[in-house]
């Protein structure tokens, strides 16, 4: 739970919370359960409820479920245009010219969620410049750290 709260803080998701009594850890993977579902979880389960992310090699990797929840909780994010949204899903970084809007303040080095123009969370990255500062159009503004294209890459 602490790992999840720390990640929420990293993206400045100020209104994000859930009761930790329903967060389960199994082999470094974290799941959020509602009360009725928790009755069906027994020893040795493989997956349960909403997958929140995993802790591996000293680092927390948030799931796309968690990122979407954070996006709805006012997390720091950038909305990008259609072309950049697709390129981001293909592991590419975000150019400054592709950012349509910035939600919250983002300084160089901050973790930011990346949303498409329908408000759907596509992943997250690290700001490589301070949003609002003067930048060249083709300067990389957000370095891709994780995107939903991962669902395809995992199954290769």
């Amino acid at each position, binding site marked *: 739970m602490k790992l999840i709260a720390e990640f929420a803080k990293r993206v400045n998701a100020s209104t994000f919370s859930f009761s930790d009594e329903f967060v389960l850890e199994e082999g470094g993977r974290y799941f*959020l359960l*509602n009360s*009725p*579902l928790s*009755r*069906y*979880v*027994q020893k*040795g*389960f*493989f*997956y*349960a*409820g*909403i*997958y929140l992310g995993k802790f591996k090699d000293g680092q927390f990797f948030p*799931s*796309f*479920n968690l990122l*979407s929840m954070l996006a709805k909780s006012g997390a720091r994010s950038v909305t990008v245009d259609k072309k950049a*949204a*697709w390129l981001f*899903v293909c592991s590419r970084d975000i150019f400054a010219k592709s950012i349509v809007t910035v939600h919250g303040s983002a300084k160089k080095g901050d973790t930011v969620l990346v949303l*498409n123009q329908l408000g*759907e969370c*596509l992943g997250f990255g690290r700001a490589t410049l301070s949003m609002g500062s003067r930048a060249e159009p083709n300067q990389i503004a957000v370095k891709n750290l994780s995107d*939903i*294209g991962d*669902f*395809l890459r*995992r*199954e290769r």
Partner: protein
Amino acid sequence: MSGKVFFKNRYSKLGWAFEETGQRQAIRINRTRVKDNDLPERMKKAGVTLEKIPFLENGYWVKGSTVSAGATAEYLLGLYSIQEAAAQIPATLFSDIKGKVILDACAAPGGKTVQLADLMDNDGAIIALDISKERIAALANHLERCRVSNTVVYRRDARTASDLHLQFDCILLDAPCSGNFASDSDWFRRRTLKDIERNAALQRAILAEVVTCVADDGEIVYSTCSLEPEENEMNMDWAIKHLNLEIEDTECKGEGGITKVFGRDLDASVEKCKRIWPGETQGFFVCKLRRRRRQ
């Protein structure tokens, strides 16, 4: 006893004139992820043209595409699943599943599990089992991608389902089967009658186990993508005679089950099953069973 001629001859005896057929790609919209009916339009802009499948509420044929339907942002966001059209039928046959506790006995790779969760609005609980390590990882990915929240997955042989000590309102048994030639171009070369008999025995063993976990009056939907009566009508005939089950009427695409198989008469109620010969969909078989009250 194998080969194309052997099996074509069997199908002929079952009343079907063999025809070569391919498989049309189909998708199913995840309604919990797409509230408005705007996905077909959105997909068109993404390069995938859809056509409504008349016999499915949320199913669409992929009519044309400039990109892979399995690699769009909409797919990765879980707005739809790629799911063969006939395979979309079984999950829709339960009477009422919202808020219920359901066993998906052989769940991976999870197309029907996600569909059940969608039909349940992520309410109630699904217990999904599969024995394969690789396939269960694909199942978990599928659940995560489609934002399913009411499912618990166990890596477990369905023949040990009762060890969970749970009772289910409904059970989906999409049984491991021999498949069919429409979805496997090498099918006639690989399959023998012995394989089919072995799979039929496995299906009976799973069915006999899961039936001990279903509540009185609970429903079991049994399905396979096999065309072979040993895995379908003959197993259902065995089930109603040995497992205190009865076959229910089902309203869905397909012909009635075959009640006279290679000279053997099956129970008349087997006709209530549905059999789909390959054509616009792959071959498929589905049967809805109800557990009679225990004495």
